[in-house]
């Protein structure tokens, strides 16, 4: 298969392994695909005849559905496997799952897994294209791509922007993928959260660390607010939800320090009144629903490119309307 220099290769397991050119070409490819979702009949034959397995071995609703929409809008045949009701609960190992998928001659696997490195593990063992839909605390590349697209839509660029990720950085795959992607595209990146939820060595990745959310908001053009995973509280990472909201919550009062052109992102699902107040989530700075819309376009772009599509032919590809 002929591929241009900016093609993705076989798999998308993380942003860390992508070049800036590859990231930009995914974002550029997503642009024309956005329009497909606006049509009355939201379907093009780009992946007709391709079989895709959505292997979601950890609970997920929005990411799985977003991938499913992307696949269906590109006319792929899809099968969903979830943790409950799959042979995995019966003790099947990931390598056996991989071998079985391979034996069924599927074309692509979209995998969500609770262990860091699981997507790469699968990618190294099967010839099908593998897309990481979140592996443990490692990466969630399509989430970062849709965040990048949403930021670029608004500012027309990424380079030179200041982006702060606020919340549980330690356990967040979204944070890591965002950090890698934003830095590659020339943004300044910071993190802010309780020190118990910042990984040791995070500053060595090239990010600033803010201890106070007020300072982070004053500094940033964009804040990406992460969900406080409630189980973290039980594990003693933060004393209480109430305190978390009081000290780290993104509230309207705190946004008064923000500049006039300021974006609030959140990968969802939100804990309203914990990490983000409702009037911020629903307010003028919020692009949270735009992220969801962009998510489908970005995932269509990734699947299209992994299937051998060319970024420069994306516009043409979407013309083959069927229905």
């Amino acid at each position: 298969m002929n591929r241009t220099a900016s093609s993705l290769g076989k798999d998308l397991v993380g942003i860390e392994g992508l070049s800036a050119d590859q990231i930009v070409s995914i974002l550029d490819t997503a642009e024309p695909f956005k329009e497909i979702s606006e049509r009355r009949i939201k379907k093009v034959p780009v992946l007709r005849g391709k079989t895709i397995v959505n292997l979601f071995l950890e609970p997920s609703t929005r990411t799985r559905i977003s991938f499913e929409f992307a696949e269906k809008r590109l006319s792929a045949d899809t099968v969903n496997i979830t943790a409950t009701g799959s042979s995995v609960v019966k003790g099947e190992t990931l390598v056996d799952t991989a071998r079985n998928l391979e034996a069924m001659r599927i074309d692509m696997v979209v995998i969500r897994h609770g262990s860091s490195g699981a997507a790469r593990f699968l990618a190294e063992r099967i010839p099908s294209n593998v897309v990481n839909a979140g592996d443990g605390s490692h990466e969630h590349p399509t989430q970062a791509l849709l965040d990048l697209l949403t930021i670029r839509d608004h500012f027309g660029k990424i380079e030179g922007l200041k982006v702060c990720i606020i919340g549980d950085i330690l356990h967040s795959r979204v944070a890591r993928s965002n950090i890698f992607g934003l830095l590659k595209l020339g943004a300044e990146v910071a993190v802010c959260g309780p020190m118990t939820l910042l990984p040791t060595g995070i500053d060595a990745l090239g990010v600033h660390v803010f201890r106070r959310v007020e300072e982070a908001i004053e500094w940033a053009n964009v804040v990406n607010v992460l969900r406080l995973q409630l189980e973290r509280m039980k594990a003693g990472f933060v004393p209480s939800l109430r305190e978390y909201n009081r000290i780290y919550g993104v509230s309207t009062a705190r946004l008064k320090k923000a500049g006039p052109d300021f974006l609030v992102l959140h990968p969802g699902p939100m804990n309203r009144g914990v990490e983000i107040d409702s009037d911020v989530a629903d307010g003028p700075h919020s692009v949270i629903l735009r992220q969801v819309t962009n998510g489908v376009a970005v995932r269509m772009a990734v699947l299209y490119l992994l299937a051998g599509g060319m970024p420069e032919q994306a516009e043409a590809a979407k013309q083959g309307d069927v229905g």
Partner: protein
Amino acid sequence: MSARTILFQGGRIVDPSQGLDGVLDLLVVSGKVAKVGKGLEAPENARVVSCEARLVLPGLVDVHVHLREPGAEHKETIASGARAAVAGGFTSICAMPNTDPVIDSPATVGFVAAAGREAGLARVYPVGAISVGQRGEQLTEIGELVEAGAVAITDDGSPVMDSGLMRMALEYSRAFDIPVADHPEDMGLSRGGVMNEGLVSARLGLQGKPNASEDVHIARDLLVAELTGGHIHLQHVSTRLGVDLIRRAKARGVRVTAEATPHHLLLTETSVEGYRTDAKMNPPLRTEADRAAVEEGFLDGTLDTLATDHAPHHYDEKEQAFDDAPFGIVGLETALGLLLTHFVEAGKLDLLALVERMSLNPARAFGLKAGTLADGAPGDVTVVDPELEWTVDPTAFHSKSRNTPFKGQVLRGRAVLTVVAGRVVHEL
């Protein structure tokens, strides 16, 4: 003359117990060392082994191996582990008690000892548990374990978290003159960790274990050993502060011995890149600064004992996502080659010092009749070809397991003949 009579002729005999390093002959008669000297005559019916250009060492001793029997014989059995040991030049090995069931009763201690004798390869010394079921609650019947053949006690695999229990173990064990070995790890600080905590874990999104989880526990063990006068043996030390704490404790007279493993001497956390489960071990591979400190401690004798922490796992258990794979690597068949190549040939350590750390010191630490070629000592001998180049090929291991991060490494120096009580148990 018995078949257990051998004359090792013209080899370079390296025996730190006698300060010996020279080309000499060694005579083993009826399974015991009879004489070391020049121009020794072979008794009638003795086997004569020409050892020209070979090293003749007191059999190597590994005080930290996991044999998995009873309970996980698919990974290793006492016999397969003993076979791997002699192939690697080890004539005495100490079997950790974290089996299923745990080795916490005279019966289970006896089982390990008997299975070791039956295998008839390396000498297999059982190590009993400190606490019943290794649950960290109640002391085992330590005296009875020792009577049944246990040479030490440890809850290895897990640390003893209760400092009071550790105090009791160290005090009680003094009557039996055995070491209390401990896996130093504060479980609260290492909560959920699967590798070293630092830049690499931050990037890979893997939960880390900080150095402090080990340092805190080493400090605790040293202080309790000092309080009780018991002999603490610290297993697989991996941190720079840990080495320093032990160095300072030794200087003030605390009864402590300590291990360095080949992997902590040679590898760092970067080996985990790519989620390589063969580099997943506990304690984890740490930073270059830690590795260098472990090396320094090994060279200056602070870490007086080389131990492999041989931890066999079946291939499909390691063939998993990193979080799900078990900790540990096999070590019996690679340790000698790794140390000869990276320490002796590299000019960091002389042979006498290496043999001290791989034979004499571990034997002394665990009170084993081994580690010396003095007259009357057991005829346990390892003959090494120091020039033999070989490639680490896990498929050729005698161990039932293949999990090693050293696969494909070209090493120089290998045991070509291993003799236990005058019997040849391995010959290349």
